């Protein structure tokens, strides 16, 4: 396992603030760092600002009328927050968006090929990577000629991840890969993430609701609530934290709680003192 302290820092987010539509303040000073070759998880409830953080990094906020008003985002020592998304992709940072966002009218294979849009290393190399993606996701190979709009949720998620891999990224920002997927698939996708991480040396920053899985695969984690980082630490440590256990893993002192027993009133989180 990676030790965050010793490896090179790839991406650093310093105290950023994001405002939508000039009035809605969503991120209120978020800082985090992603080490080279690691899987870093960004956890937190709905509306905590995970997606916003990822989009701030990949510079996709602009088209949603959001902007980073404070702080800085540094990738390999270089300030990147004024680049356009394409330039960032060329630098090796690519995002897999929440909700998959496949190109519905393109076939699966065409979708994958668009992932290689920024690449200049020739047809053969792209062809090779296509095979690599098909190796990781055999299911995609079966459906390569189908229009993405008609494939199932899981296939679309695979397609989106595969598409990102086609850009030969160094860092992948992965937003909620597990959403809406069957348990087996979730496991499978995380396995693939792990395999890609280890096999190709790609670093991941992933936003997840499914804390359970995320903390099993990640090395380091940040917990975000209402636009602030409220806790961070090694994944293993976080798993043992009692608050995380209760609120994110659904564990009570005596094992997993039943969803039938949640009607009793809830406790307050300790960090919201």
């Amino acid at each position, binding site marked *: 396992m990676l030790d965050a302290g010793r490896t090179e820092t790839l991406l650093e987010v310093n105290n950023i603030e994001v405002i939508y539509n000039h009035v809605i303040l969503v991120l209120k000073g978020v800082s985090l760092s992603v080490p080279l070759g690691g899987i870093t998880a960004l956890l937190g*409830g709905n509306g905590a600002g995970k997606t916003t953080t990822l989009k701030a990094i990949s510079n996709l906020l602009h088209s949603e009328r959001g902007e980073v008003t404070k702080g800085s985002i540094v990738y390999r020592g270089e300030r990147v927050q004024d680049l356009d998304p394409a330039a960032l992709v060329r630098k090796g940072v690519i995002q897999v968006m929440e909700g998959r966002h496949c190109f519905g009218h393109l076939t699966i294979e065409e979708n994958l090929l668009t992932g290689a849009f920024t690449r200049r290393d020739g047809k053969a190399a792209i062809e090779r990577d296509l095979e690599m993606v098909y190796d990781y996701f055999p299911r995609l190979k079966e459906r390569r000629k189908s229009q993405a709009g008609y494939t199932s949720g899981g296939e679309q998620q695979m397609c989106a991840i595969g598409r990102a891999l086609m850009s030969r990224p160094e860092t992948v920002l992965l937003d909620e890969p597990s959403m809406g997927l069957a*348990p087996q698939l979730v496991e499978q996708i995380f396995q693939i993430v792990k395999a890609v991480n280890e096999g190709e040396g790609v670093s991941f920053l992933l936003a997840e609701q499914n804390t359970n899985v995320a903390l099993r695969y990640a090395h380091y984690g940040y917990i975000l609530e209402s636009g602030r980082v409220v806790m961070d630490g090694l994944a293993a440590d976080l798993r043992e934290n009692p608050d995380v256990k209760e609120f994110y893993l659904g564990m009570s002192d005596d094992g997993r709680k039943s969803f039938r027993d949640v009607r009793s009133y809830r406790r307050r989180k300790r960090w919201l003192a």
Partner: protein
Amino acid sequence: MDGAMRTYRNDEKEGAVSDTGYITADGRQIGGTLMELRNITLKFGGVVAIKDISFDIREGEIRAIIGPNGAGKSSMLNIISGFYTPSEGELWYKGAKRPPMKPYEVARMGIARTFQNIALFEGMSVLDNVMTGRLTHMKAGIASQALWWGRARDEEIANRAVVEKVIDFLEIQAIRKTPVGRLPYGLKKRVELARALAAEPSMLLLDEPMAGMNVEEKEDMSRFILDVNDEFGTTIVLIEHDMGVVMDLSDRVVVMDYGKKIGDGPPDEVRNNQDVIDAYLGVAH
């Protein structure tokens, strides 16, 4: 596998309203058959999304549908709510065969639903969204509405009261006037539920109500579902991928895979069904 299930099946007498029902593990009385799907097949061009599936839904129960992605779960829900018309098969509701219907007619029969990919009316406030759930209960004529007088106004106030109850129940008072476009995902899901509940349906279809939620939020959602089922006796059909939720909440589970039914029965039984483990769960939960 069949032995246990037969107890729950109701396919002996055609169109019979009800037999006696059954008692759940935690002691609730489940009524007779509310809806029965018989040999449903659904095709899209060459693709067979659902293949000859039959099952029933009983009054007051929480009926889960699970299965891998693309198994045809949402399509099944769409058939129930009239959005898709099955290529083959019949649908019996409250003891009568349901003729082909427009979705809005189905909704008016008391079947409300939520959607897998949130389908709220983004341009409206939370309150208005929930009010749309009550449209089926509002009958004022256009003149009355234009003048804001008489029936239109009375209805507006009466239905607003109902809606406020739902809002209180789901604890979304604070965002009443917020445009839904600005809400985070979890709250949107809750608003969607509110909209469905506002219709006071006798049957509620929930398509992955907890996708994209963390445990805390899932707990909330579970609480709402249980309360609705409990307090109003609403029958609930639930599609969900979180096995914890499914196992804890549902009374009976249908398992689908590639458009076929591979299991049907109480949660405990289903989770030990080898077909289900192979196709869906991966490991026993």
